[in-house]
């Protein structure tokens, strides 16, 4: 299979403009003849569904939550980047593009990233027009803050709830189209397969989560906006329901999965406190603007802290190691996420971690409060401090926060070309569900930017090109391909219900998560990965022999929902391991112990691994086939990333 990214010709700054002119258009009267299926209603899904409906297409929008407003984009805290240069600090589209490619450790496509930076400015205009209450300065203009991996202030924010406000904006646009009759909503509905006919995606099969009914929906195009797969690790900052099922079922129908091993471990999360824990909570990385990260200089002191004999405030300045400021004087606490996470792991591995488990570092606001006053800090981070206090029972205004890295985002995902089309005609992937813009590491405040860029500004152009280039047909749910796919879906559900084994679904999910975190987490090595592959295969075998799924299909059955999702996570886990094992280099969030510089930084191998690894499913139990898309860098100079 030859992978063609379909990047337009010409200078990078003109590619998107030229492409928008070159794409074929569907005339306004014809748009109403097309049905578009949008799965997922987060930033990418809601914005795509609203925009396509406004253009005149008939849209069906699906989500597993009870309302589209609850998709997990809502939990994003810190902000959204845009190259507005309102602060006059030297920002530009080119700089945002450059920062993003560099931040991704040179493993993303130049063309896609430039377009992302280019439309970022329109996103802010659009969101303000629809009533997103971004933070303002006293003069009434928009306020900005700085964020990790950048030396300019280009991040727009709405308190610590930027994702919520952007999603509510997209949800309001979506609601308007529901009222206009252009979008039909299907809440509490889960997509369980893609329907294929003659190599093209023609619709989906879903399960109504209330009644258990298996239903078919035909469409001229299917958009998967279904988010990332961080829950493969069991503990992550994702929502409990976030899952890979839609993307994975598409993968099993032929869509390539790209760079699945690229996962982002976010440095500032509340540490794990015990076995009861169901998820981890992120503290926005914006906290690193004012918080200083440190651990005790010596192991001896750290041990006393772990036992509770010494408190943070009692440790004198000269016995503290502000390790990020020490190692990276120019970026300090604002190094990119992968660098910050790995360094936290190192100091904890050295035995210098704090908290009862020793798996935490301090994030200290004492200096910021002394400098700016408690009320200024409260205005900036009040709600984050509240969340922290509620979960841990500690007051971060008085004692330093304790943080530790946790799985947060997955840069890998379905392979897409410049048009956001997967290799299956008619099947698209938007937002976190695709792999395209963040390379091996995503910069902070870029996920919201990408979700909305894909939905509001990219897909409305590129989908028309696809539809206009092929003859119109009316392909409906009566076609045998739907019946066949429904039978497959039903068979799978019946199988899950008939095992009647001895162990609850969560038993397997936890077991899988531990293997993935231990061997395919913050750092990996070949030996561990090989071992993990065997372990995941065993978990799979045990799952299909011994899982216990209570209840029936014909009712609200959350155990059954979860069983299907965990089954898919197990298969994905094995592919992530294969991908990590194949990539004999370190880059961004993928850190292989064998490949590091003398200073312990990620060591890329541009000669051999400057490619996108896109995997093709081969059938049950068979190794997947690797396809390579070479990455070309014409505008960015590849260097060893340095934040010193």
């Amino acid at each position, binding site marked *: 299979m030859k992978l063609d990214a379909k990047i337009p010709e010409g200078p990078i700054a003109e590619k998107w403009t030229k492409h928008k002119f070159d794409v074929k258009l569907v005339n306004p009267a014809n748009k109403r003849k097309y049905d578009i299926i949008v799965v997922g209603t987060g930033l990418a899904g809601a914005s795509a569904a609203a925009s396509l409906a406004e253009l005149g297409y008939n849209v069906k929008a699906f989500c597993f939550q009870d309302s589209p*407003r609850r998709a997990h984009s809502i939990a994003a805290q810190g902000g959204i980047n845009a190259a507005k240069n309102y602060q006059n600090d030297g920002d530009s589209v080119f700089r945002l593009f450059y920062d993003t490619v560099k931040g991704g450790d040179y493993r993303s496509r130049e063309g896609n990233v430039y377009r992302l930076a280019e439309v970022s400015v*329109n996103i802010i205009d659009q969101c303000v027009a629809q009533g997103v209450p971004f933070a303002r300065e006293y003069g009434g203009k928009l306020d900005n803050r700085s964020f990790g991996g950048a030396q300019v202030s280009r991040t727009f924010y709405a308190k610590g709830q930027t994702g919520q406000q952007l999603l509510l904006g997209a949800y309001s646009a979506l609601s308007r189209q529901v009222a206009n009759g252009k979008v039909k909503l299907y809440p509490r509905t889960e997509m369980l397969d893609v329907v294929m006919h003659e190599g093209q995606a023609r619709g989906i099969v879903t399960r109504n989560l209330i009644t258990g009914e298996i239903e078919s929906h035909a469409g001229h195009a299917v958009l998967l906006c279904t988010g990332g797969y961080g829950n493969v690790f069991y503990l992550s900052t994702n929502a409990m329901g976030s899952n890979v099922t839609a993307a994975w079922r598409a993968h099993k129908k032929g869509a390539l999965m790209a760079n699945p091993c690229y996962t982002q471990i976010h440095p500032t999360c509340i540490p794990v406190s*015990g076995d009861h824990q169901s998820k981890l909570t992120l503290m926005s990385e914006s906290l690193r603007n004012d918080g200083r990260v440190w651990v005790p200089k010596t192991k001896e002191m750290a041990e006393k802290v772990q036992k509770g004999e010494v408190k943070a405030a009692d440790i004198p300045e000269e016995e503290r190691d502000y390790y990020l400021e020490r190692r990276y004087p120019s970026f300090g606490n604002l190094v990119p996420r992968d660098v910050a996470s790995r360094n936290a792991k190192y100091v904890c591995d050295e035995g210098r971690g704090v908290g009862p488990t020793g798996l935490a570092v301090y994030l200290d606001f004492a200096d910021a409060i002394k400098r700016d006053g408690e009320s200024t800090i409260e205005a900036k981070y009040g709600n984050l401090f509240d969340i922290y206090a509620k979960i841990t029972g500690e007051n971060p205004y008085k004692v330093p926060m304790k943080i530790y890295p946790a799985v947060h985002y997955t840069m890998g995902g379905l392979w897409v070309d410049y048009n956001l089309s997967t290799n299956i005609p008619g099947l698209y992937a938007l937002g976190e569900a695709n792999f395209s813009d963040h390379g091996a590491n995503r910069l902070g405040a870029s996920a919201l930017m990408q979700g909305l860029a894909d939905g509001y500004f990219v897909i409305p152009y590129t989908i028309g090109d696809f539809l206009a280039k092929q003859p119109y047909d009316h392909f409906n749910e009566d076609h045998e391909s739907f019946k066949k796919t429904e039978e497959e879906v039903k068979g799978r559900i019946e199988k899950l219900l008939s095992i009647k084994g001895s162990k609850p679904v969560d038993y397997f999910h936890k077991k899988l998560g531990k293997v993935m975190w231990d061997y395919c987490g913050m750092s990996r090595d070949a030996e561990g990965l090989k071992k993990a592959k065997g372990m995941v295969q065993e978990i799979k075998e045990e799952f299909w022999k011994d899982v216990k799924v209570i209840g029936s299909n014909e009712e609200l059955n959350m155990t059954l929902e979860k069983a299907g999702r965990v089954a898919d996570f197990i298969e994905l886990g094995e592919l992530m391991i294969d991908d990590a094992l194949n990539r004999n280099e370190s880059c961004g969030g993928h850190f292989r112990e064998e490949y590091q510089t003398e200073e312990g930084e990620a060591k890329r191998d541009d000669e051999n691994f400057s490619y996108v690894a896109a995997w093709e499913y081969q059938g049950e139990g068979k190794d997947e086939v690797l396809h390579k898309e070479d990455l070309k860098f014409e505008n960015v100079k590849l260097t060893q990333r340095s934040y010193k």
Partner: protein
Amino acid sequence: MNLKLKIWRQENANSKGGFEEFQMKDVSVDSSFLEMLDQLNYQLEEEGKDPIHFDHDCREGICGMCSLYINGEPHGPTQTTTCQLHMRSFKDGDTIVIEPWRATAFPVVKDLVVDRTSFDNIIQAGGYISVNTGGTTSDANEILIPKEVANEAMDAATCIGCGACVAACKNASAMLFVSAKVSHLGLLPQGKVEAKKRAENMVAQMDAEGFGACTNTGACSAQCPKEISLTNIARLNREYLSAKFTSDNN
């Protein structure tokens, strides 16, 4: 800690429900309320019994999916979402009563899960600014918004749509929810254009969905996990009245 739980069980929307009792042992004080229920469900599943169904998703207090009426209060004893309620708020040996939201407009789906589609219907009736996405809009900084106004709009926009206000209200009124959205958009210059029509249409939809009337007891705001202020209801009343006098909906 050890606990006694009395939990509402109901097979589906059409069946009759009732309380079932459970004994819980060895619950960590650090676990969240929902993690305590996870623990119970794990036990039930091991015993081959139907686990308790409850809504939840982000577990960070922002998605608004979790509900639960705990010991007579929506989201329990502290002013947070249920997912942010921790077991350290309870004592060893406590009996905890857990019910679904109770309101005509929120019918029970199963056990503790309710249907809040009525909230989506209210937003569809006018909870938006009528601008198209994409295309060319004016530069974001061409609209100057005083910091205080932006903050006030943001405070109203913080509503997570969980429905605790309805569950707390003896009339099951949705006024706090509706007023938060009307305030968020009506305070901003971009949203003023449609302010009157929005207030009228959203209130009409609220009535059509079967929510009760507001009698200003303030229980909603007192129980709101996001501390949405009663001022919003006053603002909605003002907007609504002035709309009635000078209605655009003729």
